[in-house]
């Protein structure tokens, strides 16, 4: 009844070409920057983290709806599910960061009289950091594989136990991800500015990647519809995705201002240094970040109509996707490099990793029917509409 997705040779060739272009640009960029390797590693970290976190947040989207016993998401569930399967591969890129951590993280080479970092050393030391990185990747891989397996098994059987078991695993996922999403953000991103800390940072990064994940779901949905799949997704489902993008963009802004406001008010030098470097050396993209990630989706998606029109939704999604890449850039670059740099290396690495991400997504997406037809709430997902 529903056409299964076919990963055509044409698409494969296109994505491989994309990866090759990305790889060539990356190699060119690497050779151009051989004398400042910290820029290379910052790029690896940025793209490695961004896409891994998007994959994980997309899977979080599925898990939340499993736990909330919602129905509408079953029509698009297979998209974030397949996105989540990128986690182990993104994890490999994150393992690469371990090789270059000396170039990004200041705490890997502490001055003997730096008491602040010496105090943090029991947590922030190369060995424990590497262990944590490996643990995150392993735990996340286990979780996304397990829940995906249960979902795929439901295509073969109508046993309700599959549903209840996936709910149990979703509970475990939520608990573990609540902890690891925060700690991984501290480890991978916040510890770049080694002396600085913010208790809000984990949520801030998580929401940032969650918004990005929703935008990628929308973009992939659009691409799949263009290829003639997912025709069953109607305006109501778009509307709900639009609401996600709209609402969480506002939530992102809320966390951004919460973090900024407290630091601005209390005006303590060791805290304000984080924003001082960003406002002085990254002035343009620091403010552009707020406009792109908040004002643009806020104003575009406010009317009901734009959330229900795929083209408007797509525009907002692309803006937000690029915007949160910039958000990560603003989080990483000042601490790791100190001044804004953008060139062949950044573009190439992003295209390369995005190409890998897309290739693996389509490969996973082709493995199963485009909808979980035996899901207990599948029929319900067409039997609703948004109140006007």
């Amino acid at each position, binding site marked *: 009844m529903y056409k299964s997705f076919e990963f055509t040779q044409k698409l494969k060739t296109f994505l491989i070409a994309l990866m090759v272009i990305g790889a060539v640009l990356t190699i060119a960029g690497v050779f151009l920057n051989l004398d400042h390797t910290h820029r290379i590693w910052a790029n690896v970290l940025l793209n490695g983290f961004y896409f891994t976190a998007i994959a994980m947040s997309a899977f979080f989207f599925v898990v939340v709806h499993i736990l909330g016993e919602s129905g509408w998401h079953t029509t698009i569930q297979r998209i974030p599910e397949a996105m989540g399967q990128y986690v182990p591969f993104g994890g490999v890129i994150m393992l690469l960061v371990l090789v270059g951590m000396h170039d990004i993280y200041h705490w890997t080479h502490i001055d003997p009289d730096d008491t602040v970092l010496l105090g943090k050393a029991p947590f922030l030391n190369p060995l424990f950091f590497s262990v944590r990185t490996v643990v995150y990747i392993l735990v996340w891989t286990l979780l996304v594989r397990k829940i995906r397996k249960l979902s795929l098994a439901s295509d073969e059987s109508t046993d309700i136990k599959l549903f209840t078991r996936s709910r149990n695993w979703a509970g475990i996922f939520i608990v573990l991800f609540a902890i690891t999403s925060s700690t991984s953000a501290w480890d991978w991103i916040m510890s770049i500015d080694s002396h600085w800390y913010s208790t809000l940072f984990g949520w801030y990064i998580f929401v940032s990647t969650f918004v990005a994940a929703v935008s990628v779901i929308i973009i992939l949905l659009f691409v799949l519809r263009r290829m003639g799949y997912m025709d069953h997704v109607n305006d109501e489902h778009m509307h709900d995705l639009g609401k996600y993008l709209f609402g969480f963009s506002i939530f992102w802004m809320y966390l951004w201002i919460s973090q900024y406001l407290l630091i601005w*008010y209390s005006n303590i030098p060791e805290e304000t240094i984080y924003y001082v470097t960003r406002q002085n050396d990254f002035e343009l993209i620091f403010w552009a970040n707020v406009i792109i990630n908040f004002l643009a989706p806020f104003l575009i998606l406010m009317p009901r109509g734009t959330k229900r029109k795929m083209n408007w939704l797509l525009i907002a999604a692309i803006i937000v996707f690029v915007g949160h890449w910039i958000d990560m850039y603003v989080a990483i670059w000042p601490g790791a490099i100190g001044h804004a740099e953008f060139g062949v290396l950044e573009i190439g690495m992003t295209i390369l990793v995005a190409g890998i991400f897309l290739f693996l997504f389509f490969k996973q997406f082709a493995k199963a029917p485009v909808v979980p037809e035996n899901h207990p709430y599948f029929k319900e997902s067409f039997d609703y*509409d948004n*109140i006007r």
Partner: protein
Amino acid sequence: MKNKTYVSGYFPDDKDLIIAIKELQEKNVDITDVRTPFPVHGLDKVLKMRRSRLPRAGFIAGTIGAVIGFGFQAWVFTEAWPLNFGGKPYLSVPSFVPVTFELTVLFAAFALVFGFLLRSHLGPGADNHIFDEEVTNDRFQILLEAKDGQVDSLQESLQSVGALGVQLHEVKS
């Protein structure tokens, strides 16, 4: 003054309600009102109701709230009563954000609530005839206004689509 006559019938389930409405519409029966204990998905579409204009009122009021919130603070802290807080500039935009936000929400919420009450003839002092108190609990009621000599046919058509407790109401208009 002439009294208005209404015929009402209720359904214990919202799915039956929607089906019944569709059947009544096929028989060209004009539905005056439908009363439900909670918003029923798809009801507006079936009744072909116009989209609510409340969001627009909310947006306009919210914008006014934002302008007032920001403007008032800016005026107070630069012109009317400048105070120095920890050496920060008088026009400190970050510190205005929470109040601006709150006033935006407050104005929008007020406009929505009172706009809604006004538009649906509800709120303090409203004098609406109560057709069935159980509508606030678990009944989904269809209300048909009966013109002269229509009463019997309307009652019949309500019963034929499966409505329970079909009865007649005389309401002072």
